[in-house]
């Protein structure tokens, strides 16, 4: 092809520099209600997670709240377990377990967490249900929003926000109820003397719930959630993700139900756009995997219904893998590839840590001892010619009952405790005990000698701690 000899000179035009927003101007998304297998699963998980969240704080255990993160007394209670700040190690391990579980689930089936269990999804689902009941489904809501303000609109909007506010406040109340005993909160609320900080945090959490589930919705997933951004590195060609079967669907186009669409050169996609309408993040899954997809499968449910109506087989949009689509694998092949080096390694590491964690919890001794040397006197000779060292034992009785502890010492011949050999410590309390230890001058070498303090709960032989210390001989 011949190039034109002279191109017209480009018109000089001042192009204003406009910052292109990284984020498009937000369009309000009106997700259409959807029913189906995955929607049912999501509702089951909404109920399950919320029964736990709203219910757990009301359970009693040992005459106290079963699950209580008692910040005031710096102790976390989870059923029979009591965690002190010194137990932060367990929290760290728990976080590692959560992260590994997230890796494993993401490698197997994408964003299962996001689609079914994330509080953002769960509360959005609840808030959208309220919205649907009060304002109607998608079309009704779009019409209502387009209308000028009227008595009816005002009534509907007030009812919706009233219902949302109640749920949000109850959520905030429950949240704070995990930090301040919830029954105390109830009494304080009834007596109208809720503490200022409790009031503040109830309102703060309630406001966050209302804003996130009522307004921010998919924005949180798209712009605020770090997981959405790094999920890609956890996917591989065998990861199950919500997939549109383009080979089967294209070329898309509308047609009458009676048409032989294959003969007409059309694929199975009728281009009804319902998969886009139901999407809570407003994407078109037919464009392939996008980071906005939270894996909720609403489009699968919606498309299956359309396929049923058209009399086509289900699964034009389905859970599938990149490999399965390319190699036309069936369900069996897909499931066989769930077990692959990546998932096996994640699974093995995760199991090992979970077992170690469970073992550590099961054998956790409700007693901690710290030994501090008395710095004022290193060693002194007492009346009978023996050498005395003074130590300070910080004994933490982390059990929820008062206990008597026997203190012993070993490590040098004839070493013994010259002060009280037992100490009574109330439930969940730390007590500092001054301990005088005596030994013969010739019992060890000059200088520092390794000794061991043994603290044992009287009547509970398994509650036993041994702590190192050094005994000085002149």
């Amino acid at each position: 092809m011949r190039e034109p000899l002279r191109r017209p000179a480009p018109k000089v035009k001042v192009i204003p520099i406009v910052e292109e927003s990284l984020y498009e101007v937000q369009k309000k998304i009106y997700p259409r209600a959807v029913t189906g297998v995955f929607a049912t699963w999501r509702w089951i998980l909404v109920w399950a997670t919320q029964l736990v969240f709203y219910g757990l704080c009301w359970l009693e255990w040992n005459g106290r709240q079963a699950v209580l993160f008692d910040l005031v007394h710096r102790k976390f209670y989870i059923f029979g377990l009591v965690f002190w700040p010194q137990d932060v190690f367990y929290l760290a391990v728990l976080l590692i377990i959560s992260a590994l579980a997230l890796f494993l689930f993401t490698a197997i089936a994408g964003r299962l967490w996001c689609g079914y269990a994330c509080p953002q999804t769960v509360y959005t689902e609840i808030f959208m249900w309220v919205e649907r009941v009060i304002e109607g489904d998608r079309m009704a809501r779009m019409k209502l929003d387009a209308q000028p303000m009227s008595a009816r609109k005002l009534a509907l909007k007030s009812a919706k926000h009233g219902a949302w506010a109640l749920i949000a406040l109850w959520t905030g109340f429950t949240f704070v109820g995990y930090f301040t005993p919830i029954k105390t909160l109830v009494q304080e609320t009834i007596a109208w003397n809720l503490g200022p900080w409790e009031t503040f945090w109830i309102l703060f959490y309630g406001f966050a719930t209302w804003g996130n589930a009522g307004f921010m919705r998919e924005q949180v997933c798209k712009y605020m959630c770090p997981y959405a951004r790094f999920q890609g590195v956890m996917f591989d060609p065998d990861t199950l993700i919500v997939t549109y079967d383009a080979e089967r669907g294209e070329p898309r186009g509308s047609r009458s139900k009676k048409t032989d669409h294959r003969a007409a050169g059309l694929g199975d996609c009728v281009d009804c756009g319902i998969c886009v309408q139901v999407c809570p993040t407003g994407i078109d899954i037919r464009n392939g995997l996008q980071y906005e997809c939270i894996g909720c499968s609403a489009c699968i449910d919606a498309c299956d219904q359309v396929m049923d109506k058209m009399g086509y087989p289900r699964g034009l949009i389905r859970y599938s893998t990149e490999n399965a689509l390319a190699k036309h694998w069936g369900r069996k092949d897909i499931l066989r590839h769930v077990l692959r080096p990546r998932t096996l390694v994640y699974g093995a590491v995760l199991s090992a840590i979970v077992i170690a964690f469970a073992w550590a919890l099961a054998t956790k001794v409700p007693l901690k001892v710290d030994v501090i040397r008395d710095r004022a006197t290193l060693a002194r000779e007492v009346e009978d010619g023996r050498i005395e060292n003074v130590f300070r034992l910080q004994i933490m009785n982390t059990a929820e009952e008062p206990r008597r502890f026997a203190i012993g010492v070993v490590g040098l011949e004839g070493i013994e405790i010259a002060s009280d050999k037992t100490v009574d410590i109330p439930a969940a309390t730390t007590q500092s005990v001054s301990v005088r230890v005596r030994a013969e001058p010739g019992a060890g070498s000059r200088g520092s000698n390794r000794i061991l303090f043994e603290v044992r709960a009287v009547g509970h032989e398994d509650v036993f701690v041994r702590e190192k210390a050094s005994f000085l001989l002149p």
Partner: protein
Amino acid sequence: MSLSRVGRAAGGQTMNKAIWILWPSFVVAGIAEAVFFTLFDPQDLQLFGLPHELSRVGFYSLGFFFFWAITAASSGFTIFIQKTAEEINRCPLTPRERPDGCPKREG
């Protein structure tokens, strides 16, 4: 691009910047709060060498906002120095508003 669109995009920018500043700092402040108060008991801390009269919950709450303010200041600084040369040099006036004699004045 119409003016209203520009205006809306600029409004969106402000919103984005608010999110960029407030959100990561909120998350990091939460982590800082948890780590700091796991290690230190508010009752053992002194303000300017004097014991304080705040309750633990009050101290935790104020502590959280203290951390959030610091982390948000850091995020804000990041956003501030992220401005490109064009953004800093750009004339804030629209071509129509520019003074007489300005070569970029229009209309």
